[in-house]
């Protein structure tokens, strides 16, 4: 009987395999494209240096950060049962931004290497703990969103305060640029610092497939199917904090990837929240790698930051979403 549905139910293996191949191609492309043509006329040693110190961290970071953002977006949308959820909603990005801005403001980042990503990681962790404490032990999806908004708003206000009182124009420029989000000029030590957290968060979130599938039927039905709701919530929050917190710590704020990627892939995954998790992980990596390649291609004419590009892509996406929802709700 299974064959009868083969053409209507999405084939998980085909979807994930296809996305994995595209992600791999985007990764290789990211290594190959840049202002300096590698392997063509350049002395071997300089080429190797560019590859190791510039291209490799950038490609690895693009893949990991994109995967973190896409996956946590899919996990949050599935847990909250709301297609508008995205990682910045639970306060993690705001906390990381505040931590980073504070290290710049206090001059720590200039004094000691790696303080900036460490400060951002700390900020993300504090924000996550605050959100969980605020939402309470048995708080449902709506409480979690409200707690996330409260913590995000406070973090945004404090970031503005730091910018406002900043005496040092260089520090101010650094803060503003950091807030825009970028993959450029990150060093391998920064990647090694953030990668374990991102990978741990990704692993946690990937375990949620079954719970999120069951939650499609509401909390009572999911619990009657053997799902532990409290544990699911803890894993969603911890996984998002680890992966997105660490991602933001190194790259700054990159918005909309966590919103757009799950949305775009949902029909291909048969609207199944469980299958959407690995699909969005791969899709997020693809989107960020391709966006970063596009930035490098236009670089001779304009110096754009990736956070700005994703925001530019995100706004029209929201407009399209509004129009779609409006036509669906129209009588």
């Amino acid at each position, binding site marked *: *009987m*299974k064959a009868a*549905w083969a053409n*209507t*139910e999405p084939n*998980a293996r085909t979807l994930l395999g296809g996305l994995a191949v595209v992600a791999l191609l985007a990764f290789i492309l990211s290594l190959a494209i840049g202002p300096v043509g590698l392997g063509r006329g350049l002395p071997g040693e300089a080429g190797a240096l560019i590859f190791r110190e510039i291209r490799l961290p950038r490609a690895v970071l693009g893949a990991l950060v994109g995967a973190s953002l896409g996956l946590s977006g899919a996990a949050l949308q599935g847990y909250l*049962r709301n297609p508008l959820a995205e990682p910045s909603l639970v306060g993690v990005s705001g906390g990381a931004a505040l931590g980073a801005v504070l290290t710049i403001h206090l001059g720590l980042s200039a004094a000691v290497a790696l303080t900036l990503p460490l400060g951002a990681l700390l900020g993300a962790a504090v924000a996550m703990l605050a959100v969980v404490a605020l939402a309470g032990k048995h708080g449902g999806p709506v409480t979690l969103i409200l707690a996330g908004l409260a913590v995000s708003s406070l973090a945004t206000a404090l970031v503005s305060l730091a910018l406002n009182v900043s005496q040092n124009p260089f520090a101010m420029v650094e803060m503003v640029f950091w807030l825009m989000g970028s993959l450029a000029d990150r060093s391998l030590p920064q990647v090694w610092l953030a990668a374990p957290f991102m990978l741990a968060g990704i692993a946690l979130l990937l375990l949620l497939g*079954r719970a999120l*599938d*069951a*939650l*499609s*039927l*509401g909390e*009572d*039905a999911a*619990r*009657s*199917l*053997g*799902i*532990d709701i409290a544990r699911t919530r803890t894993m969603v929050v911890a996984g998002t904090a680890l992966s997105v917190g660490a991602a933001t710590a190194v790259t700054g704020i990159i918005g909309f990837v966590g919103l757009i990627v799950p949305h775009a892939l*949902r029909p291909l995954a*048969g*609207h*199944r*929240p469980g299958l959407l998790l690995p699909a969005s992980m791969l899709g997020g990596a693809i989107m960020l790698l391709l966006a970063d390649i596009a930035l490098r291609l236009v670089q001779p004419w304009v110096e754009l930051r990736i956070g700005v590009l994703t925001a530019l892509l995100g706004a029209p996406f929201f407009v399209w979403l509004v129009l779609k929802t409006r036509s669906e709700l129209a009588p």
Partner: protein
Amino acid sequence: MRVEARGLGVDLKGRLVLKGVDFAAQPSELTAIIGPNGAGKSTLLRALAGLLAPVAGTVLADGRPLDGWDRQALARRLAYLPQDRVVHWALTARAVVALGRLPHQPPGAGESATDARAITQALSAMDVTHLAPRPVIEMSGGERARVLAARALAQEPAALFADEPASGLDPAHQLALFEHLARLATEGRTVIVALHDLSLAARFCHRIVLMHEGNVVAAGAPEDVLTVEHLAAVYRIDAKLATIDGVPVVLPRALLP
């Protein structure tokens, strides 16, 4: 599966919804929980399924308190069909029914041949095979109710608790649903339904539990529970009980002053 509640008290947001309920349901029995709106039918079903923590008393499944059960193991034995027919996301009917197999699948495992067979049977039992590839959120209320009932059937539980499974169904599908529930009972399963349709309760159920304001007022065979006096006292209706062509009928004739 033998399901039993002793002195069950449940508090919802400061209101005592169940006030010391004793309840028992046996395998091979189709039990109906009836009573007016707000009597505590849904709360009793949810507490029996282990979805509410009681403030007093215990629920035993096969003689063991529900707290002592591993949730996944319990889910393989007990299915609960909620009253609100929620399906988030545009899942197809088949994908929804397949969710009933989750407790039977080891982590990471896909759909087995046994799973596929159970899904196919459940779809056909609820007459929704033709709807299988369609998104459930695009269906009518009755179609959606049948798909969700099929999800609970696919779970192949020893005990099935269904909250108002027949509401919103056309007469043909109401009959088909209750004939199937009665068949599940004759197979040795424990079936409990919360119900408003007194005629369906009288016709199909082996035992009826009548609730009123958080208490069990009467429990027993349909003819002992569905009496003019009980219905007058609990529902404030003047009811006519009749048997037409061997089928019992409960007709609410008038409101009592």
